[in-house]
Every structure is written in C-alpha cells, then in structure tokens.
C-alpha cells in the first residue's frame, strides 16, 4: 500500500467515524511529516545554486 493509499484509507475511516484515536493520531502524524518535508524543501531552496 502506498503512502497516499494509506492516508486515504485512514481518512475514510475517520470520515466514517470508525477510526480509533490511535488511528487518528497516526493520520495526523503522517500529515505533519509531509508538511515538514514540504517546509524543508522550501527552506533548502536556492542552496544548490539554481535560483
């Protein structure tokens, strides 16, 4: 299962009201990892000389 499929599966469970709090927590943590990666890509921009 890809990361996107995993997230969508968790989202579906949350939407349907069947997700446990542990699963909700996993979902949010995964989202935060993605946001952190986006942030890091932006922070590191321009450092390779291509501006």
């Amino acid at each position, binding site marked *: 299962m890809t*990361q*996107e499929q995993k*997230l*969508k599966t*968790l*989202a*579906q469970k*949350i*939407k349907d*009201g*069947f*997700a*446990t*709090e*542990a699963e*909700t*927590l996993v979902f*949010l*943590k995964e*989202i*935060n990892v*993605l*946001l*952190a*990666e*986006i*942030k890091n*890509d*932006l*922070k*590191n*921009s*321009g450092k*390779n000389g*291509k*501006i």
Partner: protein
Amino acid sequence: MEKFEFKKQTGEWDENTLEKKDEIGTELLTAGEQLEEIVELIEKGGFAESDDAAKERIKQKTNMVCGTILTLAGLWGASHADAFEFVPRIIRGEMAPAETLSVLAIGALSTLALKGAELFFKGKRDEILGAFGELKDRLSRLQRKKFHGQTAGEMLNIEEKGAP
C-alpha cells in the same frame, strides 16, 4: 457518557485515551504551525527559488496532503462544500501550489482542526477557531500574490489546465 459512547463505537477505549487526546491536539496545532511556516517561506520567495526537483516534490506532497485531508473536510460540513470543487483538480495536480495551499488551509485543515476541537478540545474551540481564522486571512492574501512577477503556478507551468 462520552467515554462510554467512544468505547461502544470503536472498542478502543482504554486508560491511554486521554493521553492520545492530548497528542492529537498537539498534532493538530503542529500542523497549523507548520502550515504557517510554509506560507511564510513562500511569501519570502522560497518556492520561486526552489529547483525543479524540489518543486516537483513540493507539488506531489502538497497534492497528497490536500487529496487526503480534503476528502475528510468536504464531507464534514456544508460550510466547506466548496472543497468538493477543488478535490479533483488537486488530485490531478492541476491546481497552482499557492492556491492548493490556500485550499488546504481554508477548506480543509481549518475544518480538520475545528472537528478536532469539537471532539477533543471542546473548551478551546473558540481559541482554535480564532487562530485558524487568522491563518485563513493570511492565506487569502497569499492566494492573490505573485512571486517574482508570476504566480507559483505560472512558474511551474501547472496553472489551471481546465476546470473539471
């Protein structure tokens, strides 16, 4: 009563639940803080200066975040029904990053946070609503802003390719 209902619904109620509630709240707030930082970086021109590979990574990850969270948000409230309009475009990568980030925050993450507030932070709902209201205002301005004379979408050449 609330505890009993949760147990009945999920069968997962245990002594760690309160701790998980705190963790969920922390993750929600972290997501909001990270989004704000992302907005600030874009406002400073970080996205414009990213190399092509970084832009592609940003685009893919942003779409993944939006695609999953918006699936939730669109079905969570009539007030965010407009999220439905954006989901197909985001999933197909047809939405400009700045616009995508705006939708992420306005139509989805705020809804997610508010839903989380309802579920886990009832006493702090107004506080969280206020914080995301400010974020919404900032992102609304960002959506109209051009970077280095172009929108982020124009720079990536992924400006709207046609509405669904």
